[in-house]
């Protein structure tokens, strides 16, 4: 699988990451070499229906009971923009669309 600057820009859009065109060229070169290395996994012989390791240990569920949580004031303190009750973000829905 070859990775070119157009592919980098496609992935960057998925990752919500602004990447400038000169950066995309450098990243394409790096990622192409790294993917070339990890492609070696194709040569590993695995038995039919081999299991996958997702996590260690047991399946953990806790009772769905309310516990202590951060006071609102503390939760908002680090926000770049907030109004004392909510996090503020740029407009999500345009008037024409609504």
């Amino acid at each position, binding site marked *: 699988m070859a*990775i070119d600057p157009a592919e980098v820009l496609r*992935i960057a859009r998925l990752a919500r*990451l602004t990447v400038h065109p000169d950066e995309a060229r450098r990243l394409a070169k790096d990622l192409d070499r790294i*993917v070339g290395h*990890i492609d070696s996994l*194709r040569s590993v012989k695995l038995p039919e229906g081999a299991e996958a*390791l997702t996590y260690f*240990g047991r399946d953990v569920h806790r009772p769905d009971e309310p516990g202590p949580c951060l006071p609102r004031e503390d939760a908002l303190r*680090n926000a770049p923009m907030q109004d004392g009750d909510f996090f503020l973000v740029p407009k999500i829905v345009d008037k024409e669309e609504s």
Partner: protein
Amino acid sequence: MSGLCQEGAAALAAAVRGREASAVEVADAHLERALRWNDDVEAFLHLEPEDVRRQAREIDRRIAAGEDPGPLAGVPVAIKDNLCVRGQPTTCASRILEPFHPPYDAHVVERLRAAGAVLFGKTNLDEFAMGSSTENSAFGPTRNPFDLARTAGGSSGGSAAAVAAGLAPLALGSDTGGSIRQPAALCGVVGMKPTYGLVSRYGLIAFASSLDQIGPFARTVDDAALLLGAIAGHDPRDATSSAEPVPDLRQRGDVKGLRIGVPRECFGEGLSGDVRAAVDAALRRLKDAGARIEEVSLPLSVHGIAVYYIVAPSEASSNLARYDGVRYGLRGEGRSVEEMFSETRGEGFGAEVKRRILLGTFALSSGYYEAYYGRAQKVRAAMRHEMEDCFRKVDLLASPTTPTAAFALGEKASDPLAMYLSDVLTVTANLCGVPALSLSCGRTAEGLPVGLQLTARRFGEATLFRAARAAEALLPAYAWPPEPPR
């Protein structure tokens, strides 16, 4: 050097509890040294003398009142800057978190406070713990105390350098692919990654959640065990935290009859002659002391880096989605919310973090998921079985921790793949969830430390620490780096 800075953690705690030294004296000695050395080694990103002294005064007050503050009474512990300390900067060495002050303590930080430790500043790391040299820190690299032109390793390079230079007797790091053991080896100290699940990750800023573990740095195995003992144990706030009892970390004994497997794959291409010689000499000493050294094979371990560089970036791309400029950290400009997200992340993340987010997004994206992430998880499961089979034949594994001693700053900075390969001997323990410890086993011709890595089965910490203590007694004692030129 002040005598107090040469002491280990156990001795300092005993002196403070026995009123032979005050916690304030211990804190001041380390502050004086840390502030003087930090211009050279850049181990600390934040160190507030007044906050350190305030904690130390409180320990002294409790002792004067007849209380016992705990097993780490008055002991300074440096904290890697990806662990949340309430109200203190916690940046992950990233511009994106530069303004962040966590509203809570990590579980390990709560445990340190409860053990009487003095939280001693926040140490440098590669941005979001992604790297092997701290050169990916947005605030500049940490330098190796043994040679300031070389790397202290990474990602927990600041913690390793702080302990090596006597700026703190103990430090916490995190290890996702070798980020405790590799810098420990390069700085000549003890660094240990616990069994996955032994230490709660609550309050550790997530990089790759199925691999991350918090662990200790110290100058002796005993001190590393003391620190691990203080932070290990179940915490319901981390769903992967184990409910198993914490292994006995205090066992002593010799290595007679201990079966130590030496994986032949760890002695392949790329291993420097100096490192091989120091590790071979250490293995001979273990053998002379009665250990049964035998060659073993872990054929799948040669795929460790490939598996790691799919699994870790995939998890990172998901974990780092939270940095969107809404709840904390930096915010970029944007007319729409999506533009704001993208600009925030484009401005806030450094080059290596971007590479890994993109690599992970690629590996998880439609059409590639099965070929990359799915396949990597299957190879990972097979690696785990191979490791478990191996531990049916031997009690421990021994290998070099790193293929080379500390490399020069700048040497690998422009070649990400070469940098990734410096973790070739450490990633297997993370992928298999087993504990591993690095201790210094000698020096290269240039005087640079070499690390010996011991690996045990899951929850095999009792055997691991017992063997590491015995090995330490057979190996050269800790030798201090030269004092800084000024």
